[in-house]
């Protein structure tokens, strides 16, 4: 290893300081000791420790980062082998992380009224993003949605940071009944209009947001998901189709070219 800059790629262990329920998800707080300076929207590639099953690492967004105390937050929704094992870790456990990875949300050109949209567990990276925007003096409007109240993530943390907040659930168990994008459509016709939309959530939600953004001429950035092997750009496993393919190039890498993309650049269908 030749470089230990805080933003350089590194492998490090986080000691699990807290593991608490947040709806269906778990909030994992990791105490880390290395220099670390992630950008909101970046992610970690996390080994499911101990066991070799599953074999590959799992990508998880950096949900929050407290530089002063060296505390890193992850929000993990247990959907399969890897996330279930991680979600069940006991405080004290060491979590093996590779990161920070990928390009985060853009830091400039967001205008005076950035609006953040989170779908389900996709709210995770928005917490750290909202915190940064607050620090930059741009407290964002935050919309989050999920199928039901249990699937909402990061509500409390985001509420503390947002200048304005809306919540939607498909079954109405919390906030507006309906899709978060329905609330977004309405919001886009109210002044002050959002100057940019920064989103993370299911592919379908991002596609709808892209359409809304196009209709209202608002730049939209979304954090995408794809299965990953290396997480660093080496294996070309995490392809996402480009809107403007050339003869030789049709795909971008979610891990290294993203995970945050200008939604105009990528095909979401």
């Amino acid at each position: 290893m030749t470089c230990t800059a805080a933003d350089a790629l590194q492998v490090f262990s986080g000691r699990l300081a807290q593991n608490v329920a947040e709806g269906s998800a778990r909030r994992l707080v990791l105490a880390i000791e290395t220099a670390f300076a992630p950008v909101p929207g970046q992610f970690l590639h996390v080994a499911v420790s101990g066991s070799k099953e599953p074999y590959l690492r799992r990508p998880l967004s950096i949900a929050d980062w407290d530089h002063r105390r060296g505390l890193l937050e992850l929000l993990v929704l247990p959907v399969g082998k890897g996330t279930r094992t991680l979600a069940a870790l006991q405080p004290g456990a060491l979590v093996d992380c590779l990161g920070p990875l990928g390009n985060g949300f853009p830091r400039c050109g967001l205008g005076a009224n950035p609006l953040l949209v989170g779908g389900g567990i996709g709210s995770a990276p928005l917490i750290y993003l909202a915190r940064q925007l607050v620090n930059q003096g741009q407290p964002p409007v935050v919309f989050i949605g999920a199928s039901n109240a249990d699937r909402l993530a990061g509500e409390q943390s985001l509420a503390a940071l947002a200048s304005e907040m809306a919540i939607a659930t498909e079954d109405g168990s919390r906030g507006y009944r309906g899709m978060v994008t329905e609330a977004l459509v309405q919001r886009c016709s109210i002044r002050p209009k959002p100057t940019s939309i920064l989103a993370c959530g299911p592919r379908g939600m991002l596609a709808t947001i892209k359409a809304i953004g196009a209709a209202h001429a608002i730049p939209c950035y979304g954090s995408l998901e794809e299965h990953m092997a290396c997480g660093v750009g080496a294996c070309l496993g995490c392809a996402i189709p480009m809107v403007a393919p050339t003869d030789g190039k049709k795909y971008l890498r979610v891990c290294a070219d993203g995970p945050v993309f200008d939604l105009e650049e990528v095909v979401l269908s």
Partner: protein
Amino acid sequence: MTRNLAIQFGSLALKNPLVAVSGTFGYGFDYEPVLCPEDFGAIVVKGTSITPWPGNPPPRIVETPSGMLNAIGLENPGVDVLIEEYLPRLAARDTRIIVNVVGKTVDEYVAVAERLRGHEAVDALELNISCPNVDAGGMSFGTSPSETERLVGAVRDVTGAPLIVKLTPNITDIAGIARAAESAGADALSLINTLLGMAIDVEAEKPVLANVVGGLSGPAIRPVALRCVYQVRAATSLPIMGLGGVESAQDVLAFILAGASAVGIGTAIFRDPRLPEQIIHDLQAYRARYDAWPVGRAHQ
């Protein structure tokens, strides 16, 4: 006692036996500074074609027990970008650079070899006659001795670089293909490429990979890879780069004992990018047991 880990792989002197295999390590720089090209005895860059190839639609990978399937479809920017963008950067590094060559026809392979002819950063070519991912691509060459001979012979005619032929395990008689490559002038063999496999998404009721089938790699295939190296060692006298599922110094030694003089690692790096450093450290203890690396000793 620690010894120098150096090993001779055909005409190439490697500072250690560990090689980063093609397609899993990009052009060598993506893992820096955690893992660098110069940590390896050699690195094999991604399969390179004469023109850019876009690769397959996603999903391209899926995990399987102790392994993974990939159907990248040999996405690569083509040999010109390799020459302009990557080779100059790689040339500055203290390691051997091997270029994995792919093509859909003999002429395409030959064209890549010609473009790379005499390039001082290129220590060897590795002909991928085995990638199972492209319909009209490599697979057909590597499953037929006569096609292998035709391809290897044609590339041999245009290059003076050490020529490594990478064999597929998806075949009845791997020794036959090895002999064909040898008689057509190959300088070395590398094996194995991935096993043809697939996964099914039971919720969607369809194959997980957009390409339907993909290549299986990782520890799951190690027993098959060791068997292939052992069989090929007995069938030819060419130097062998053994690979498939390596994840420890013990595995490296197993491949050496089976007959390999260089040992590749791919998928295991995805799990742990610190592994190569660990393996090289652990290899010291094994090396100390021997006067020379015990290549092929398991045959005695």
